[in-house]
């Protein structure tokens, strides 16, 4: 089985702040990491490989330093990596990104399963995976909390607003995974030692046979109008005491006092 897993380099959001004047991400001194949910995607791919055999290729689009997240994927146990790096790809929205990622999948060819994290911690659009499925014309399952392969089908449990549903898609298929699906492994030292000896491809738009008009800024119909941090209102916490009825009455009284009901 041939699995492709897509990883993105993102700023470590635990210490990212927006510049209040420009609205841009203040990336100075902020470390780059593998998008946390993509680590779940890698883990899901590796577990399927360990159970059913096959290979896992990690793919990322980004500047040369995005190679770091691919190295991490290799150190976790992926077999090879492909970095899609080209100035032409810069400034891409989800559509242009999805186009380039789909081109990489086509170049590799013969794939059975494509796995994505459900969304990236920087953009949080959750669109790129589904867009790739659309470009490739293959079925997709989003928000998977479990994932397995049975007789040529991808079988997954999807989380929905009011519960979960078990669905299946005929391979080749694309799946986006939730954080609940697994606990990503640490890259063990022995795998780190092996990681840099594995094949690492770097492809530009020519090698992917990608149309520059569909890549990067020219291929991106969406524009960012404004970035801002929502204002946080600081309100006091009120604790109610007593039995249920007393607390309910206190609560209603408070809502009335504030003209909320």
């Amino acid at each position, binding site marked *: 089985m041939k699995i492709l897993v897509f990883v993105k380099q993102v700023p470590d959001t635990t210490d990212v702040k927006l510049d209040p004047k420009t609205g841009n991400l203040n990336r100075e001194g902020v470390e780059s990491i593998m998008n946390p949910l993509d680590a779940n995607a890698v883990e899901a791919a590796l577990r399927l490989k360990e159970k059913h055999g096959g290979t896992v290729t990690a793919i990322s689009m980004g500047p040369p330093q995005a190679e770091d997240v691919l190295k991490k994927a290799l150190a976790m146990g992926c077999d090879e990596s492909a970095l899609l790096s080209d100035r032409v790809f810069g400034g891409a929205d989800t559509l242009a990104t999805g186009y380039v990622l789909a081109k990489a999948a086509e170049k590799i060819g013969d794939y059975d399963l494509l796995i994505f994290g459900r969304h990236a911690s920087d953009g949080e659009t959750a669109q790129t995976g589904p867009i790739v499925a659309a470009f490739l014309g293959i079925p997709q399952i989003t928000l998977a909390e479990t994932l397995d392969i049975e007789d040529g089908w991808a079988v997954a449990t999807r989380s929905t607003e009011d519960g979960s549903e078990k669905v299946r898609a005929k391979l080749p298929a694309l799946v986006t995974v939730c954080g609940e699906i697994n606990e990503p492994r640490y890259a063990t030292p022995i795998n780190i030692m092996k*990681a840099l000896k594995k094949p690492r491809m770097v492809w530009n738009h020519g090698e992917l046979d990608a149309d520059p008009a569909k890549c990067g800024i020219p291929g991106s119909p969406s524009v960012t109008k404004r970035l801002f941090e929502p204002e946080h209102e600081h309100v006091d916490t009120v604790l109610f005491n007593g039995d249920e009825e007393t607390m309910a009455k206190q609560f209603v009284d408070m809502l009335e006092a504030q003209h909320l009901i």
Partner: protein
Amino acid sequence: MMFQFTEEQKMIREMVREFTKKEVEPRDKWMDENGFDYELHKKLTQAGLMGIHLEEKYGGGGGDPVTSIIVIHEIAKGSASAALFLDANWLAADLILYHGTEAQKDKYLPQAAQGKIFAFGLTEASGGSDAAAIKSTVVPAADGGWVMNGGKAWITNSGVADYYIILAKTDPEAGAKGISAFIVPKDAEGLAIGKFEDKMGMRGSATCELAFNNLRLPADALLGQLGMGFKYAMQALDGARISIGAIAAGLSEHAMNIARSYANERVCFGKPIGKFQGIQFKFADMAAEIRAMELMTYDTAKMKAEGLRHTLEAAETKLFSGTRCTQICLECQQILGGNGYSKEFHVERFVRDAKLLEIGEGTNEILRMLIGGTVLAQK
């Protein structure tokens, strides 16, 4: 730091940093209150860190002494106790790696890589610094094996170890040249393990007394050559002193990070205390000293990796790093004021942990004797 790490070493550093942040630092306070953490030991094993320095054929990670020091340094940024546990474990297991027969290596090193715990027993209750004056004895038994009598004190990892490397006199008349090393399994008949020491700090690392009462060992329990134990032990301590440098650098950084956040947030006389020169000067000295510790530690580790003799350099590294670490932790405690005196802010624990670094693996005084004597003998 301009010290050149390989790309693999950088990746391992990243991995251990992540591991330390998630798995080690959150457990340090618990360990201080409850002792050795078997859960953390399990996680260290699963992450492949217990045998990182061992060759791949033994199931290890194939790292070198610089890589091992990276691991200890990074883990010490989350827990000095956990780093000390690894240091003592590797110190003991490495004696088998360096001096064991092929059969001993094949038997014990895969176990070390799989997480079995090792302890190194040299010090005795009657004297630590005068290491050649140990009183434990081993005599040949009629069946070709050995019989051990005596006891040990302050043995790091005792009580949790699966195997002990014990130094004992095989020729009481021959001084340091009459000492040999033996591999003792924890369940050996005649081995009595005392209660855990109620220590000031480093409470996440286990320390007990050991007693040997006609402890019977098979012939192949002898490690290396008869009468060479003291030399092996001194070489092992050279390595362990580099580890202490790494623990000191990591613990100091941990303390300084907490003090930095505090100094930037705590407002006094209308501005954060970090804006006052009296506080800034403290950070200037701390930052410079931590950098010096790191450089000394990695430079000496590189010497070890290249097979160069590093007795003097390791002693200098440990002396400087250990003494400065205690002072840095005290300064950080001072920066936190009353909060520094509270257990809630962690730094008081670091002060207690740091003091061990001036005592274990050679006291400051023994190191000064070694360094001073060596330097004065140089032309």
